[in-house]
């Protein structure tokens, strides 16, 4: 086997896995803070990317477009909290989940209604070309864009981990995900915290949307990449920020390696479903995921 080729597949797989991690992070945030799977995360990615690209197309400079989109995502988070979530405090989690399904369709419609449903090219100014230095030394083709995306994802994970585990707000958020009412009883303002965490999830959606948007073009299918994040979530654990990134690396490299080295024997095209097989196996062995919080049962 060609070692250089193997590593090239491995590394580019890992880097593309990081892109899944970015999407998965948004899910993890909301899961950690409310114990609910946010079905609307994909729609938020679409909305963020579409808003961003349309602002750019209006001729706004990139920093202004970016800040305006951030503002839109924060306002959206506050509205979601006020109009939807605040009425569902202390309801069974399945009710909250259903609300996010509704929200998903609403946001998809809103995004395409306000802007449009065309495919928009997005150029962030990051080139999708092989990194020259790496190519010279090792002969591997590693995309600059992938590396930039990985650095961004890595720093997001670092910052968010610190927020969740070292700060007062992070501790309060983890308390809320364990027990909504108990959190209220000790004086944690649920409404404010939920607005904060949805705003952060909105920002993460914007980062994911922008990077995926440059890859695929900003279009409706962006809301479907959420499905790519599912196996990452299951593998890493729904409430682990670190899990999201590690599982992203595993899934990304796994699917590429499987496609390249296993694919030819089974007729190819296994990249599309391989992650799900991996996720299912994990569910058998460790239902909380590799890094998820242990499921505590008292008997």
């Amino acid at each position, binding site marked *: 086997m060609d070692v250089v080729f193997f590593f090239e597949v491995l590394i580019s797989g890992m880097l593309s896995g990081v892109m899944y991690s970015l999407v998965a992070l948004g899910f993890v945030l909301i899961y950690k803070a409310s114990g609910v799977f946010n079905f609307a995360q994909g729609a938020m990615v679409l909305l963020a990317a579409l808003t961003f690209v349309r602002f750019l197309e209006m001729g706004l400079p990139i920093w202004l477009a970016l800040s305006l989109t951030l503002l839109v995502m924060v306002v959206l988070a506050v509205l979601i909290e006020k109009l939807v979530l605040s009425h569902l405090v202390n309801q069974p989690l399945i009710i909250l989940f259903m609300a996010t399904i509704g929200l998903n369709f609403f946001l998809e419609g809103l995004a395409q209604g306000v802007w449009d449903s065309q495919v928009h090219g997005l150029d962030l100014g990051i080139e999708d070309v092989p990194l020259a230095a790496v190519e010279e030394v090792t002969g591997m083709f590693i995309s600059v864009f992938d590396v930039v995306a990985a650095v961004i994802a890595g720093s997001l994970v670092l910052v968010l981990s610190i927020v969740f585990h070292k700060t*007062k707000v992070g501790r309060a958020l*983890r308390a809320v995900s364990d027990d*909504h*009412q108990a959190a209220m*009883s*000790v*004086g944690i303002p649920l409404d404010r915290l939920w607005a904060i965490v949805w705003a952060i999830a909105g920002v993460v959606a914007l980062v994911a949307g922008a990077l995926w948007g440059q890859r695929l073009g900003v279009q409706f299918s962006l809301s479907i990449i959420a499905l790519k994040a599912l196996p990452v979530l299951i593998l890493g654990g729904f409430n682990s920020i670190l899990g999201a990134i590690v599982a992203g690396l595993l899934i990304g490299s796994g699917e590429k390696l499987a496609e390249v080295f296993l694919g030819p024997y089974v007729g190819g095209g296994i990249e599309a479903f391989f992650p799900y097989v991996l996720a299912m196996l994990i569910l058998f062995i460790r239902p909380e995921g590799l890094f998820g919080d242990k499921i505590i049962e008292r008997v």
Partner: protein
Amino acid sequence: MSENKPLVAVNNIEVIYDHVILVLRGVSLEVPEGGIVALLGANGAGKTTTLKAVSKLLQSERGEVTKGQIEFKGQDTKSLVPNQMVSRGLIQVMEGRHCFEHLSIEENLLTGAYTNKGGRQKIRDQLELVYSYFPGLKERRSSLAGYISGGEQQMTAIGRALMATPSLILLDEPSMGLAPQLVEEIFEIVKRLNTEEGVSFLLAEQNVTMALRYADYGYILENGRVVMDGEAATLADNEDVKEFYLGLGGGERRSYRDVKHYRRRKRWLA
């Protein structure tokens, strides 16, 4: 008990769940500054609902105070939400402990300081104070609360409430599911917190014997009404209370017709 201005005054409140279910009808009670007041009664009498009406947690259970008013430190609390009550010094320890399972004991305690604006050092000092009352918790500070015993969870829940430096703790059924010895230990700590730290308590309990031993004053709830109230010692001496709540029957069996003749004093009409 009337020489002090009451810390909490509940005046003739009515609570309705889901717009139809009437749970409390005309409950009035007072907790004086520095007092331990017991709210006694059987399952479903309305003890928890009364506490949640005071702490405002009722809002998230589709319950509503439809009549009457609740004052805390002389201020009407109608428009307040739970975290505002906590920052004003009133906190509830819910029935069944409700610790945050995936947080360590220490992290659980620290969540109680969310509204504590005193700064890092103040919070550290408060934490040490809590540990001085519950030395067992200090030893296990890094254990996940989901894995500790029921007694330790109850202590964590009370300690967590203390972190908010409250003037009044609403304590719902602290004896639930605990061994008698542990119950006594917890009540002892409550008494000490009351005398040493000046924290007042409103205590909902089914364990009437224990509650009347530690409380100064008691109210007995039945079907959402206060049917009797008085000094703890007086209540403990009352024949009906003895028979129905303390299990100290007068000896020979009596016909059901002859019992349950409380003098229902409607205090709010006085």
